[in-house]
């Protein structure tokens, strides 16, 4: 009896986490491994045969200029999104720091876009950014400025998408940083006043280090999120004009489910994406985690 009791106690924890483990295995680990496996085959959706072809898919991908173009676009989009969101969220949070009634209203307003479905956001912004009948150009014209081409020009399309994602997410990150700011005790600033600290020194030596764990989390979430950009592109530009907004995930989608249904190639591109995101996260941890201050 005692033995089974001991055994039961040893097994129980595993039994309790089993559902979660099973879920992970079936819906995350297995597809991931299968993706890696398929990237070494020549499988297409329209042809049942799967033959092992080694690194052929990767060689093919890296030989194609449209793949390099998608990679470049993705990086451009990510860098712009992460930097603009991170700086804006921090600035907004510091700006809205005082707990006045107006500030809490602004905070709520800023956060609202986060709860709207991305698809709806994309549709609304498509209309706002319409070159001929969009609200944005109308406002610009009202101010006596020439309208912009927004999504219709290769030069402005990507930046327009960055603006949409910025609008949708900045409030969310602002709230995270804001709540981090709220945890900083006021005496620390009083001590800094007595230490004759200037405004910049206060921010960079005291405020920012104090919110570094949340800032670090935001940075990683933003980076990963920006690499996964898809919906806005699918709805607003379809990768165009030309291939100006063709990003990696859109490339994967098009390769797998349009034209020749080359799932094997899409899988190889997926592995590349996985690799890049993993590398960036590791890089962040290596470079920044020592500077992050955990309480």
């Amino acid at each position, binding site marked *: 009896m005692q033995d089974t009791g001991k055994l039961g106690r040893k097994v129980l924890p595993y039994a309790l986490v089993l559902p979660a483990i099973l879920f992970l295995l079936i819906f995350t680990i297995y597809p991931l491994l299968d993706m890696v496996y398929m990237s070494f085959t020549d499988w297409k959706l329209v042809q049942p045969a799967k033959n092992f072809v080694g690194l052929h898919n990767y060689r093919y991908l890296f030989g194609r200029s449209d793949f390099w173009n998608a990679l470049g676009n993705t990086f451009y989009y990510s860098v712009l999104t992460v930097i603009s969101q991170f700086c804006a969220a921090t600035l907004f949070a510091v700006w809205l720091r005082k707990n006045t009634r107006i500030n809490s209203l602004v905070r709520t307003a800023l956060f609202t876009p986060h709860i709207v479905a991305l698809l709806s956001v994309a549709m609304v912004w498509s209309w706002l950014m319409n070159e001929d009948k969009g609200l944005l150009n109308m406002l610009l014209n009202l101010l006596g400025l020439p309208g912009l081409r927004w999504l219709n020009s290769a030069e402005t399309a990507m930046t327009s998408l960055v603006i949409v994602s910025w609008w949708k997410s900045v409030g969310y990150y602002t709230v995270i940083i804001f709540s981090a700011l709220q945890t900083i*005790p006021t005496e620390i600033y*009083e001590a800094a006043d007595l230490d004759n600290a200037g405004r910049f020194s206060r921010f960079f030596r005291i405020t920012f280090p104090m919110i570094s764990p949340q800032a670090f989390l935001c940075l990683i979430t933003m980076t990963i999120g920006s690499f996964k950009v898809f919906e806005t592109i699918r709805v607003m530009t379809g990768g165009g004009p030309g291939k100006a907004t063709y990003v990696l995930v859109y490339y994967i989608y098009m390769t797998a489910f349009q034209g020749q249904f080359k799932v094997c190639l899409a899988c190889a591109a997926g592995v590349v994406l996985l690799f890049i995101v993993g590398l960036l996260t590791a890089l962040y941890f290596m470079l920044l985690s020592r500077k992050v201050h955990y309480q």
Partner: protein
Amino acid sequence: MAKIELRNVSKRFGNTVVLENLNLTIEDGQFAVLIGPSGCGKTTVLRTIAGIGPQSSGQVLMDDQDISDLPPGKRDLAMVFQNYAIYPTMSVRDNIEYGLKNRKVPAPTRNKLIAEISEIVGIAPYLDRKPAQLSGGQRQRVALARAMVKKPKVFLMDEPLSNLDAKLRSQMRVELIELHNHLKTTFVYVTHDQVEAMSMADRIILLNNGVIQQEANPREIYTNPCNKFTAQFIGAPQMNILPLPGSDMSFGFRPEKVTLTEQAPDAFLKKKARIITREMLGSETLYQLRFDKQSIMVKSLSDVFLPGTDVYFSLRKEDILLFKRDENRLYPQEDGYGQALAAAGRV
């Protein structure tokens, strides 16, 4: 070193008046302790001197210079906060160095100062640690070092020992007294602990509801309180205050001035009373006595009296303090003193 002076200082938070027309002078080199019940405005006075949360009106002077409009960082004073307020993201060294850097003190001087001060307060081995890796007492020392390194003219301390355990507190108390003797700088120290006030102060400033009740050295404030509030605030257990028979005045006496005897003694004031409780404190014993529906506390060196028994308590004439109807002291040179004292003897 500097003299601090507050002139007609008022402070309001919204509609709440914390200080009104407060005048206070703290002499150069003095160890001044601000004490009072919570909410009396003692911390507000300290913060007004520091310039954090400035006064609503009035002036703050340092060495006869008006510093009312100077920002805290330019006032040449340092403050030790109740919960230390050391910068948690900086190492101990950076914490101490920060104020010097902001004052553009050159690096060699900074390093010399840090080495010197950290040696004095005993944190030299921990300079490269983060505050989270230090004990409460060590953090207290870091806060002290951060204040000392600036070589300020005035030290402000806001209940700096209240977060330490009893043993460490009495140790730090001695160290602070030594530090003051060594630096000879003006100290302004806020506390609600009368033991700290009595043991450390050159001058005690007792506040209640934003009004200074009495300013004096510890001995004077204990033996010669100027009103009922001071008499009862300083001293534990507090002074016994009884109504004076046949008048609206009252009289008081310290619990340790009472003599207990089994037989009726020959004394100025003597009265039979019943012992209600007895608390053994070791070297002395506290008794609660009751007579005529009144109760008093007595601190005695004798522990032989038992609860439930009757004893005589007695007092000498000079140990009785008289208070007027407005709660201020009635001093021996004032009219009606002899009469009132005689009334007290007839209790």
